[in-house]
């Protein structure tokens, strides 16, 4: 097995050998390796296939910007993870990784045929091809696209890992632990500011930590040695918290940031167990220092995507940090000085290398150093093509013309096993722009830079466009002193020697003799978009960068175009003849690198996913086989499955019992608002459509509440308990909103009213007993209470004691039966319920759930707000004009009831529907028409409630139908998938129109 690890470094512990599997084969690496460095040490460059053309792809970088080396980790159904960047994943014993987007394997991939038919699949291919024939979309195109789409495989079982959230507050947050971040953190912390320093890597130090070039020195030490001392120092600072393996995912307004801390991803499986895997930090910082550095740019030339082609600086890091060389005969292709540092490092380790530089000439210290070492440099040359299928084996270079627009002279073929590219540097301005910051373009080296615009955040170091060490340190110190309003002198005497010259010759798309249409000059490696695609998009008329991006999918892969966006912009600017500064950038959106859903939800999974509200009777319902329905956050009994019966049978039994003898419902979830104050009656007058002033003490009244637009908002019964004291009930789902709305009016529109509102929903539990025998049951529970119709009529209220405990009893009915609601303090709710059940035994008192409640009220034509209404129904639409006071001068929504739109006669109105076949039950939501032959079919309305009534022995339904009020007796049709159902419009009240049962 080849070994490309050629020297020892302090970051690799060769005493700790680690075995891991890649694509099923076992390899070895060491502690300190990433998956990428370990693969390279084993001579493996080819790690995946590209998304569209399935071209072989290799490791390109050594960090978060990696577009190619994204792997599937693990194979377990619950723990496997796709799209993990091998350049960031720390190696651990037993790691299993595999390449993605290839079948049957990475070396021989069937999808590779796409590479050869690539002229047939240009940008916008999907939009252009799958348009017709229309009928092909659902059955042919979509399944095919779905089959071939996507990178990697999602886990198919719930994630067993534990994730955590943490909220923190700091005076200063420093993002990035490179040289400028370390200086900033030290200055802040030494000035008594509570400081947090985060870095996504395992150790601090950025790219300076492995810098060993003799021409870059600080205080007469190698810059890396100097930085190590600084790091030792800041670790001693008591008010500085350092979090490594922690990356900022999002920078929101008001300095609110989300950071992901990796806690166990670098540990072997047995050590991961029962530990928190990742923690999401929710950070509020008074000030934020952004020191996120910069990333190297690739160059755009023909076949620039072969395995073995990396960023030049990454080759340097693999060598000096991991001790791994990416090849034995390396060519560095550059437009600036950075590649010379790599070249000198390689030379020092005895690795043969050659430089191809597109600049005409240059003469900085670094270049002189390289020249004196005898490194071959081709100035004014450009790489025009590369060769080698699974790995680069040679390339062609040509001389550039004077203006740089074309190539001249003969091709020179150079053999190599690795190519390093250096197109200059792109400052990482993601954090700055996410926070709302704007960018300015610097023409000199073609970079977008943060525009300082806030007192609360600042960018320092190379993310601010400062690239040489002297500049970085001086500027960082000055800026931080000013930003934090301090006067730190620690670095005043620091003596820095660095190469300041860095001429650059920027050509976004390098010239080539081959026509562009026949080249593969990749811009976005992960989404396989090329320079040709960008030009095609422009030719087809796309101008906005946001449109070109979406049409070509450039920058839309999991790496979000960290390596590709600048080139796309550059080529658009060049082609369209506009300045890059005017063109602008696409939006930088969070997250910076992908987050798992686990991290985002933290502990809020399973039973912690949402708050569950249970009534005090809940346990009884569970013991008695209740199936539950979620109503808002409440768990309400839906039906009680006695002896294993299904819902239909349970509802038929429950609703029959309620009408024939007695039923009991847990009504505790209804919203309850206690209203007190001398203006309580006036307040109710203003919020309900009907009049309240004359309601006698001890009486109850049903009220309808509208929005200011005249549409029904909520309903419920309100009881006058004493002169200035009411108890309002609301729908279960509307309770919180009704309270908010009432508070809003009281505080903002009518602050002069003396009214106090208190939510008492949770304070009282309610058992509602209905049916002809309910009075007898009440009599057993409250033997001293006079239940006669004279003393306790319908819509009235009494207080009595149940074994010394106060109860509020309302005689009100939502079923049309004689009915009582008993309210008791919630702690006694369970006991009340059991006593009711006990007292009701001899009368077959049957507990019923929400489904039966819905059926019983539908038989009576009572609406449910939110089921029979949808925010577009006025009282008149509901045929409830009787509840709208004509006398009251004003109430919420009154004026809207005679707007031209609300008085239209052809509004949708509530009606009853009876099916011609009484056994046929309509589907709620089904459309209603009068004629199925006309095209398009005129939709008249829809079914809102539908049930089979055992008491009437037929199917009944409520519906909203255009002009429904005038249609009684008319035949309509409900067209369903397989048949048309014939119905007749009826009254909304199906049972007991005379309300005899209320006093039965």
């Amino acid at each position: 097995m080849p070994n490309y690890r050629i020297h020892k470094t302090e970051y690799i512990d060769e005493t700790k050998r680690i075995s891991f599997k890649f694509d099923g084969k076992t390899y070895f690496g060491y502690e300190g390796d990433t998956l990428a460095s370990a693969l390279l040490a084993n001579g493996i460059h080819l790690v995946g296939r590209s998304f569209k053309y399935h071209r072989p792809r290799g490791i390109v970088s050594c960090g978060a910007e990696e577009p190619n080396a994204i792997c599937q980790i693990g194979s377990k159904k619950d723990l496997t993870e796709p799209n993990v960047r091998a350049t960031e994943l720390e190696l651990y014993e037993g790691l299993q990784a595999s390449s993605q987007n290839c079948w049957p394997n990475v070396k021989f991939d069937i999808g590779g045929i796409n590479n050869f038919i690539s002229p047939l699949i240009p940008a916008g291919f999907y939009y252009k091809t799958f348009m017709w024939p229309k009928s092909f979309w659902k059955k042919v195109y979509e399944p095919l696209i779905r089959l071939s789409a996507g990178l990697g495989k999602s886990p198919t079982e719930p994630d067993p890992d534990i994730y955590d959230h943490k909220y923190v507050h700091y005076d200063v947050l420093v993002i990035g632990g490179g040289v400028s971040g370390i200086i900033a953190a030290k200055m802040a912390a030494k000035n008594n500011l509570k400081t947090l320093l985060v870095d996504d890597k395992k150790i601090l130090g950025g790219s300076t930590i492995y810098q060993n070039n003799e021409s870059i020195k600080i205080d007469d030490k190698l810059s890396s040695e100097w930085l190590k001392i600084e790091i030792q120092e800041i670790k001693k600072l008591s008010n500085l918290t350092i979090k490594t393996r922690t990356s900022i995912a999002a920078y929101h307004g008001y300095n609110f940031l989300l950071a992901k801390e990796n806690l166990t991803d670098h540990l072997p499986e047995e050590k991961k167990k029962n530990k928190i895997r990742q923690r999401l930090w929710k950070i509020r910082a008074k000030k934020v220092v952004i020191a996120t550095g910069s990333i190297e740019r690739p160059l755009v030339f023909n076949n620039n995507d072969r395995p073995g082609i990396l960023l030049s600086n990454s080759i340097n890091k693999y060598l000096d940090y991991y001790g791994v060389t990416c090849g034995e005969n390396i060519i560095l292709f550059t437009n600036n000085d950075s590649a010379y540092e790599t070249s000198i490092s390689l030379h020092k380790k005895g690795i043969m290398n050659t430089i191809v530089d597109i600049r005409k000439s240059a003469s900085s210290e670094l270049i002189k150093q390289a020249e004196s070492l005898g490194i071959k440099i081709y100035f004014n040359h450009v790489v025009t093509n590369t060769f080698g299928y699974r790995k680069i084996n040679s390339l062609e270079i040509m001389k550039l013309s004077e203006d740089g627009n074309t190539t001249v002279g003969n091709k020179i073929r150079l053999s190599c096993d690795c190519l390093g590219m250096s197109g200059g540097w792109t400052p990482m301005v993601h954090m700055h722009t996410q926070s709302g910051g704007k960018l300015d373009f610097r023409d000199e080296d073609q970079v977008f830079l943060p525009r300082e615009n806030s007192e609360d955040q600042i960018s320092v170091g190379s993310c601010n466009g400062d690239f040489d060490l002297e500049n970085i340190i001086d500027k960082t110190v000055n800026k931080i002193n000013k930003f934090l309003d301090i006067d730190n002198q620690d670095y005043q005497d620091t003596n820095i020697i660095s190469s300041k010259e860095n001429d650059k010759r920027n050509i976004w798309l390098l010239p080539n003799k081959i026509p562009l249409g026949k080249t593969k000059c990749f811009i976005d490696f992960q989404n396989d978009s090329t320079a040709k695609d960008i030009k095609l998009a422009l030719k087809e008329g796309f101008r906005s960068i946001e449109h070109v991006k979406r049409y070509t999918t450039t920058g839309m892969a999991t790496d979000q175009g960290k390596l590709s966006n600048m080139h796309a912009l550059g080529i658009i600017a060049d082609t369209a003849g506009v300045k890059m500064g005017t063109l602008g950038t696409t939006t930088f959106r969070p997250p910076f690198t992908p987050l798992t859903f686990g991290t985002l939800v933290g502990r809020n999974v399973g039973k912690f996913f949402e708050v569950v509200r249970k009534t005090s009777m809940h346990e009884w319902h569970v013991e008695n086989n209740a199936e539950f329905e979620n109503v808002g956050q409440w768990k309400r009994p839906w039906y009680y499955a006695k002896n294993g019966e299904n819902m239909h049978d349970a509802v038929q039994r429950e609703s029959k019992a309620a009408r024939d003898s007695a039923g009991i419902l847990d009504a505790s979830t209804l919203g309850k608002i206690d209203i007190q104050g001398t203006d309580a009656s006036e307040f109710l007058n203003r919020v309900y459509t009907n009049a309240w002033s004359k309601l006698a003490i001890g009486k109850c009244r049903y009220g309808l509440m509208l929005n200011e637009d005249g549409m029904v908002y909520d309903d419920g019964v309100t009881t006058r308990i004493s002169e200035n004291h009411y108890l309002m009930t609301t729908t279960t789902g509307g309770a919180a909103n009704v309270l908010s709305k009432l508070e809003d009016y009281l505080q903002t529109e009518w602050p002069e009213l003396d009214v106090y509102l208190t939510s008492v929903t949770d304070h009282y539990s309610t058992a509602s007993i209905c049916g002809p025998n309910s009075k007898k049951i009440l009599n057993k529970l409250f033997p001293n209470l006079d239940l006669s119709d004279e003393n306790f009529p319908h819509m009235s209220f009494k207080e009595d004691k149940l074994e010394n405990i106060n109860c509020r009893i309302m005689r009100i009915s939502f079923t049309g039966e004689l009915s009582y609601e008993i309210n008791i303090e919630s702690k006694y709710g369970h006991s009340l319920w059991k006593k009711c059940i006990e007292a009701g035994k001899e009368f077959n008192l049957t507990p019923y759930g929400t489904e039966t409640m819905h059926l019983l009220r539908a038989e009576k034509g009572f609406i449910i707000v939110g089921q029979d209404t949808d925010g577009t129904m006025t009282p008149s639409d509901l045929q409830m004009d009787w509840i709208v006071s004509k006398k009251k001068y004003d109430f919420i929504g009154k004026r809207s009831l005679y707007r031209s739109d609300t008085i239209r006669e052809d509004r949708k109105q509530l009606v009853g529907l009876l099916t011609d076949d009484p056994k046929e039950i309509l589907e709620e939501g089904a459309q209603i028409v009068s004629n199925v032959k006309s095209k398009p079919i005129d939709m008249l309305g829809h079914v809102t409630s539908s049930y089979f009534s055992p008491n009437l022995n037929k199917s009944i339904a409520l519906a909203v139908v255009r002009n429904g009020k005038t249609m009684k007796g008319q035949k309509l049709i409900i067209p369903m998938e397989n048949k048309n159902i014939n119905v007749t419009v009826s009254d909304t009240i199906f049972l007991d129109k005379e309300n005899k049962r209320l006093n039965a």
Partner: protein
Amino acid sequence: MFLINCPFCGERDQSEFSSGGEAHIVRPKQPTELSDDEWAEYLFMRKNIKGIQFERWNHVHGCRKWFNVVRDTSNDKILSVYKMGEKPPVNYK
């Protein structure tokens, strides 16, 4: 995620608040006197400007008080907060 300085409780996270749209839209005292157009103006029309906007906010998961906020919608900076019934600060127009 804003930090909002509730005039009753002090600075709190945005997640404790709910927004109530444009401020200083007074409910007409005599709605019945208004034409459809005038009523629609009150009911539906909102400025929704880019720049300095007067808004209503409710400390719904706190003291439940409504109050007014002056916010620059172009950068989300909250420039001032004041209680219901108080006059809007004059230096923002």
